[in-house]
C-alpha cells in the first residue's frame, strides 16, 4: 500500500513535470551512438597509425626506423642518380615524406616531393632518429658529397650549438607550447650546416631550422620549430 500511496501522490504532482517528461526530446538510437563510437575509434586508430609511421607531423618523430638513403643500383627513378655503394648519403625525415608501402629493408622508399630532385636509393634503419623538418625545401640538397663520413656514423643527429655548448635533440620528446612562456629567450637559430657536420657557431644547427626560437630551461634547450617544441639536451658528441 505504501507504494500505491506514493503512486497516488505522484499522480498529483505539478503539470509541468508531466509536460516535461512528455515532450522531452527523444535521444538518438543506441545503435547510432555505437556506430559513431566505432567510427571515432577507427579515426583515432588511423590517426595513431599515421602519426606512428611518421606520415603526419607530430612534434618529434618517435623512435621509428629512420630512413637512410643508401646506394642503389636498381629501381632508380631518377636518371641522374649518382650514389654508390660506399656512400651513405643522408637521412630523410620520415614525417615530411610520403612513403610507399614496400618493406623498408628490401625495397626502396619512393617519395613524391623531396626526391623529385634527389636520387632514389635503398634505405635501412639506423639507431638514431630524425625529427620532422617541415621547413626543409624539397630542392635544398641535404647531401654534402664532398665530406667524407665514417661509415659507422653516417650523420649526426640534429644538433644545436649555443653558448659554446653542443646540444642534441632528445628524440621522441616534445613539450607543450605553454612551457616556453616563462623561459629565458636566447635567440633564434641564425645559421645551419649540413647534418654531416657539427655546428660550432653560436645558434647554429646542423639542419635547416634557421629562425627557430631557442629557449633555455635548466640544462636543456627548448626550440620552437614549425609550431612544435623540441627538447635539446647536452650532447656527448664532441
Amino acid at each position, binding site marked *: 500500500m505504501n507504494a500505491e500511496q506514493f503512486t497516488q501522490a505522484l499522480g498529483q504532482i505539478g503539470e509541468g513535470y508531466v509536460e516535461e517528461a512528455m*515532450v522531452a526530446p527523444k535521444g538518438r538510437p*543506441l545503435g547510432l551512438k555505437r556506430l559513431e563510437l566505432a567510427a571515432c575509434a577507427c579515426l583515432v586508430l588511423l590517426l595513431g597509425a599515421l602519426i606512428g609511421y611518421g606520415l603526419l607531423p607530430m612534434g618529434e618523430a618517435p623512435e621509428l626506423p629512420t630512413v637512410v638513403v643508401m646506394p642503389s643500383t636498381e629501381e632508380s627513378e631518377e636518371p641522374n642518380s649518382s650514389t654508390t655503394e660506399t656512400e651513405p648519403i643522408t637521412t630523410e625525415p620520415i614525417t615530411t615524406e610520403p612513403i610507399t608501402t614496400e618493406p623498408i629493408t628490401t625495397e626502396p622508399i619512393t617519395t613524391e616531393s623531396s626526391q623529385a630532385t634527389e636520387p632514389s636509393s635503398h634505405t635501412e634503419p639506423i639507431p638514431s632518429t630524425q625529427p620532422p623538418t617541415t621547413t626543409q625545401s624539397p630542392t635544398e640538397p641535404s647531401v654534402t658529397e664532398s665530406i667524407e663520413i665514417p661509415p659507422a656514423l653516417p650523420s649526426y643527429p640534429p644538433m644545436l650549438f649555443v653558448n659554446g655548448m653542443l646540444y642534441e635533440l632528445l628524440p621522441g620528446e616534445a613539450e607543450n607550447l605553454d612551457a616556453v612562456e616563462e623561459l629565458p629567450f636566447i635567440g633564434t637559430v641564425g645559421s645551419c650546416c649540413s647534418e654531416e657536420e657539427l655546428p660550432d657557431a653560436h645558434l647554429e644547427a646542423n639542419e635547416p631550422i634557421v629562425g627557430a626560437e631557442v629557449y633555455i630551461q635548466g640544462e636543456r634547450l627548448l626550440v620552437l620549430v614549425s609550431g612544435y617544441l623540441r627538447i635539446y639536451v647536452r650532447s656527448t658528441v664532441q
Partner: protein
Amino acid sequence: MQDERIIDLFFERSEEAILALEQKYGKLCRQISANILGDSGAVEECLNDSWLGVWNVIPPQKPRHLGSFVCRIVRNLSLKRYRRDSAQKRNSQFDTALEELQDCLQGGFSAERQLEQKELVKSIEGFLDSLSKENRVIFLRRYWFSDSYEAIAKRTGRSEKAISVRLVRLREKLRTYLIERGMLE
C-alpha cells in the same frame, strides 16, 4: 491541432473536440492506460471514460497543459480500474513499477506523522527538483507513465541496462530523501 483550439472546441461544446483530443493524445493515453492495466478491453473503456471526464471538466476548467491534464485523468482512471480489478492476475508494467517502489519504500511512512497527501506531493516535487532533467524524465516515465525499461531506453537513447541501473540509483536517492525528511522510518 493546437491545444488552445481543442480547448476552444470544448468550450463551444463541439464534439469535434473529443475527436481532436483522441487524434492528438489518443496514442499516448492508450499507452499509459495499457501500461497500468495491460488489457486492451479495459484500456478502451478507460479511455472512453477519460474523454467523458475531460468533456465534463472543460469547461469550467481551462488547463494550461492539455496533454498532461488529459494524461493525468487517464492515469487516475486507469489506477482506479486497476484497484477495482485487483483480484485479477496482474502482470502489467505498472505492477513491476509498483513492486520496485514497494521495495524502495520499505519501512512504511513514519507512524508519528500522519502524512497528508499534499505534504507527500510537495516532497515528491522537491525530490524531482533535486534531479537532473534526464533523471527526472526517466523517473517519471517509469513511475508516472509506467513505461517499460525498453520504452525508456528507446526514448532516451540509452541501453536498458543503463536505465535499470539509473532507476536503482534514483530509488535509493528517493528513499534517502524521504528518510531525511522523516517520511520514512
